[in-house]
């Protein structure tokens, strides 16, 4: 766990601000749930509840619980740090590549995207040399290919390269 008292000088967002953001977002999801439930009917018919009955009340509880959480965070006197910006930067160093990776899978296929992700991660974050990086990134995909496509007959998404190779 991060320990904000280690070095109080380094700036970062406050815990309560993040909590307020999360609570507000969850409450929004609750409202969406309630709207969706209203669309399909929230009544209690002769044969028990309708499709929207449970989700509606669930949505309402989400709104209420998170409204309370929002309030609690707002009045929280503690100015505890959520994390340092530097740490958040590190987290984003994984989130962004993953987002690009996920976006690339439908176009490049899972294998090529995975090789690129592994290379990027090991070079950029791990700072490993090329031989090890290439060995692991390519080796992993070869093992994956054999395990899934050959042994378990599970087809993973493929892209232009696999088409070219006729795999």
């Amino acid at each position, binding site marked *: 766990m991060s320990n904000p008292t280690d070095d109080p000088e380094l700036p970062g967002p406050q815990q309560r601000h993040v909590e307020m953001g999360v609570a507000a977002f969850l409450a929004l999801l609750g409202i969406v749930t309630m709207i969706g439930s209203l669309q399909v009917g929230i009544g209690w018919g002769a044969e028990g509840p309708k499709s929207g009955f449970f*989700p509606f009340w669930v949505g309402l509880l989400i709104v209420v619980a998170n409204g309370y959480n929002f309030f609690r965070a707002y009045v929280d006197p503690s100015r505890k740090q959520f994390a340092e910006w530097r740490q958040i930067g590190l987290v984003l160093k994984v989130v962004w590549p993953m987002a690009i990776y996920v976006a690339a899978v439908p176009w490049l296929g899972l294998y090529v995207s995975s090789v690129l992700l592994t290379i990027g991660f090991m070079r950029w974050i791990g700072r490993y040399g090329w031989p090890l990086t290439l060995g692991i990134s390519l080796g992993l995909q070869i093992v994956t290919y054999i395990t899934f496509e050959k042994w378990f007959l599970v087809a993973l998404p493929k892209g232009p390269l696999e088409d070219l190779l006729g795999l």
Partner: protein
Amino acid sequence: MESIGDLLHGFSVVLSWQNLLYMFIGIVLGVIIGVLPGLGGANGVAILLPLTFAMPPTSAIILLSCIYWGALFGGAITSILFNIPGEPWSVATTFDGHPMAQKGQAGEALTAAFTSSFIGALFAVIVITLAAPLVADFALQFGSREKFSVFFLAFCSFVGMGKEPPAKTIGAMMLGFALAAVGLDTVTSGLRLTFGSTELIGGFDFLVAVIGLFGIGEILLTMEEGLSFKGKAAGINPAVVLQTWKGLPRYWVTMLRSCVIGCWMGITPAGATPASFMSYGIAKRTSPNGDKFGTGEIEGVIAPETAAHAAGTSALLPMLSLGVPGSPTAAVLLGGLMIWGLQPGPLLFVEQKDFVWGLIASMYLGNIVGLIVVLTMVPVFAAILRVPFGIIAPIILVICAIGAYTVHNNVFDVVMMLVFGVAGYLLKKCNYPLAPLVLAIVLGDRAEEAFRQSLLISGGSLLTFWSNGLVASIMTLGLIALFWPFLSKLYGRVVTPATQK
């Protein structure tokens, strides 16, 4: 005892070199399947099913059921090492298993998990051997309302147990229910909460959510702390198995209770996943170390693993004697039985003695072989944690992505996995408990379905849940479990002053 004689006959059918070889192959394949998230036991068995058509049915079912045992064992491995549950029933194992690994006790956690799995399975097989016909009749008692009461009990014994603020627990749990409701409403066949999106008609899969919340979320948390990987100190200690075993007999009560919960949930059939959650919840409440659960208590590994394996094993009984599968994997095995010309159902035990008792004998042997195989691998698995984070993290990310994809063969699930990953990181940092959230995703729609079926049958009357002894007692137990903290406080207030005087 007639069944003992039948069983001995079963052993004579099974004990051939060929069958033992199939057992070994099955266990190893099963462990691999269990380790890879998304490639569940059902998948594994389904994929290999056609390959077994050329074999004699007894050998084929031995191979396939050993894959099933292997997958049950294997699910614990990634849960403990990387916080990624390979199978739904190993989610509860992550709660204490992964903290143990982070403390450098991966070997102990794995040994405890495998050993208690084995004990759970053994208990269930003994129940099957001695009480098969009785148990089948018991399973017939379970209609929709009884099923709902079981889910209700599983829920009640698990909620309200964390240290987190109640409003956050409720918020997280309700979010789980909302996610479980997305997609097709099975009772009316109408779509709900999809907002016209075709991607959402299948709803949110539990495994995708779990891979994201736990697996990806854990990587993000580790990133935040820099590149150190906590389990690095895990040494390779070949004696770890024996050392852990010495400490296990202390937990015999937990084990026995978890066995009973598991068997009951497997037979009814509610399945291994609720069994593991329920067993964890009850262990946490009754254990003297209950407060420390979630920080790496070995008892928190023993309870869910014992129950999950007992449930997974006893789920085969309703499959054989009633033709109703207790789990998706059992459903595929059921299909296999039919293809081999065997008809699961009440007559299977009479007409196909060789087969049934051969299978039961193979449950004994398969689990023993399985335990030996996985225990010998414990030091190897534990050593994986020594691989630096910079190398293991991208591998885990890729495996998670493949896992999320293979659940439904859908790229959209990989996107959802990442969303759940970020959510898992934020929720955890903001002190929202994840366990009630995942339990709600797993049980939410099943519980709602059973509830609405019951009301259809009763004509809308809620009294149906107290209409006979069985359902009424389960519901009452559930209520007691729900209000247990309150009740025990009340009891404490009444008793303590008296004793102080």
